[in-house]
């Protein structure tokens, strides 16, 4: 190919290509942390109940864990669940540009994903029971890349989710009318 398509960092900057690192991410609903916390709490209930059952039956023999205080042991995990949910929610954000959609997520391993609209095969709106209670929705974007969703924007306010879905599908060109 010709010299101007030679690939180097300088050439890229010269081309004045849109820099995706400059996008500002919008946060998802503030309730996302609450949802994660609630989900974590519901899952936590199971091992906590199992623990209490075993502890009550007196099968645990330990010099450290004794007396009624032993029942409180599972509570140690709860603050981490809630804190974790809050951190994850704060780290999550999305951005829409004219040509692509961006998502950032992850607290320790921070990931930024970009999907161009003209590669999106279809968009799915998903609402779990907790999300329904809070009038929120999760948007799932599928490309031809794999079986599972390539991008998931969690806990968007319902109207926003619907508007984003319509916008993306319009941009994607509605070539794929099969769901």
């Amino acid at each position: 190919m010709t010299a101007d398509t030679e690939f180097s960092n300088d050439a890229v900057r010269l081309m004045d290509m849109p820099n995706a690192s400059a996008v500002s991410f919008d946060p998802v609903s503030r309730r996302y942390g609450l949802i994660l916390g609630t989900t974590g709490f519901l899952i936590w209930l199971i091992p906590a109940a199992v623990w209490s059952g075993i502890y009550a039956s007196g099968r645990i023999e330990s010099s450290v864990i004794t007396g009624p205080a032993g029942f409180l042991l599972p509570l140690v995990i709860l603050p981490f669940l809630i804190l974790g949910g809050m951190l994850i929610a704060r780290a999550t954000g999305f951005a829409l540009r004219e040509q692509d959609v961006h998502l950032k997520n992850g607290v320790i391993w921070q990931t930024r994903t970009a999907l161009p609209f003209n590669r999106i095969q279809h968009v799915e709106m998903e609402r779990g029971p907790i999300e329904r209670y809070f009038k929120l929705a999760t948007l799932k974007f599928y490309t031809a890349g794999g079986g599972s969703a390539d991008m998931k924007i969690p806990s968007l306010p319902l109207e926003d989710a619907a508007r984003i879905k319509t916008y993306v599908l319009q941009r994607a060109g509605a070539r794929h009318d099969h769901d």
Partner: protein
Amino acid sequence: MFSNARGRAMTTTEEVASEQSPAESGVANSPFEGQAAASLAPVLNSKDWQRLSPLAVIHFIVKFVMDFVQGGVQNLAFLGGIVVFTGDSRWLILAGAGLLAVILLLTAGVLSYLNFKFRIDGDAFLIRKGVIQKSRLTLTFDRIQNVALGQPLYFMPFGLVTLALESAGSSGEEVKLAGIAEPLARDIRHHVLSQRRTARHTAAKRAGAEVSSATSETPDLTELTDADVLVAQPLSELVRYGLSNNNIWVVAGVATGALFQQYDSWEPYAIDFVDQNVTPFLGDAPAVLAFAALAGVLVVAAFLMLCSVIGAIVVFYRFKLSHADGRFFRKKGLFERQETSLPDTKIQSLRLNQPWPALLLRRVHGGIKQVGFSGSNVENTSKDTTLIIPSLTGGLAARLVQKVFPGLQWDGITFAPIDPLFVTKTLTYGFLPPALLAAVPLLYFLGAVGALPLLFPLMVLPLVILRWRRYGYFSDGQSAVVRSGLFGTKRTVFAFFKAQGVSLTQSPSQRKRSLATLTILLAGGNVTVPFMPLADAEAWRDRILYEVETSTQPWM
């Protein structure tokens, strides 16, 4: 449920006779191209559902058996267990199981055949299939990516073929008409592909655009000449492929895993076997026994190599890859001649694989990856989106790259290395925790000797360094090459505009050092570059987005 299915079967057997006859007579009377279309007429004009040849029963039975074998290696291990370990009644049990299997297979095969119906309605293929789980499929021609013909051994004497309709969608939409007359299959293929072309033509005209890929849409109209042949592999190359591809070792690994899962059940018998057949001849000196065990392993390895070579010859016999009119054509197969064609636009990436045995033999194995599935291939049930090109010399590989990516200067590639932090992080996160997990209890019970597992990360250090050195990336702004591997190498070549998405991941240490792990989502499998300098990773991402978003070329 069952009685319902039978009722259906009863009524439809009569239809078979009446429906099958026009198609068959068409075949018999039309050995020539011009008349061949006559075999299509009854299918095209009829509103009746068509059936496969009754011999399709064989196909269904073979398919069930293959599914069983592939799905349950461990089940087979149990069958083997019955043979070896049950007492006098073993043959009775086996015969009973065999008889039951035969009856079940026959019933299932006949029912599957009776419940499989197809017809062409305008610009769509309608298919009904399924015995218990009935499904109805509508495949419009414009969603059919390719039509592949294949001829399994058991269809050869009857002039029947399988016709696979490949669609871009999920694999649930794959359809295979197994057991239709060859002229009819060719006519259907011609009809589907040419109809699709006219549909695209008119659609494009309406949009006022040029149709550039028109010629490439009709593979049947392309006459291949010797000049179009890119790769034609003689037996010697197939032997090389058999010796140097890794598949057999993967199978061997799975088999070994399965064997050791059942370790408890065969261990006493193995000990008995050794006691009765080995020690009386060789004595029980540990050195001799170790030597015998080593020899045994070598014999098994040699046997596996032989299997691999035979498999390579069966699958790739008279392999021929041609390129004409913007399409790749591939023929191969000893028992089942398969012809597949693949338009350039559908290629998502090209993989050049060189496992270490291939490094010794100085060959590279190519694989063209595409979206969706390519039916009709027995060997391709699990990784059916890859068109494998075995045993290429460096020159042939370069020619192949040039064909697929004409703009890429293959010879001038210099790979950029990834950051050495990869080595430290792989050791500390990948190998240190398991070593610590093993060392802590061992230290507690054995004392200082228990610290030995801590040497493990040091022992794998050379391997990790090797792996780090294998990583490399290169791009000319339009296409890119990513290299990885351990002893051998794997190079993936792809065009930026074919990407489906990009993601950048940073761990805290990567953030501190301005590094990132870049993952490029491709329709034929993802490509990852770990510990890439952040500036490069962001430049790749921005360039990929730019290429995808400004591209007007068809990508699948």
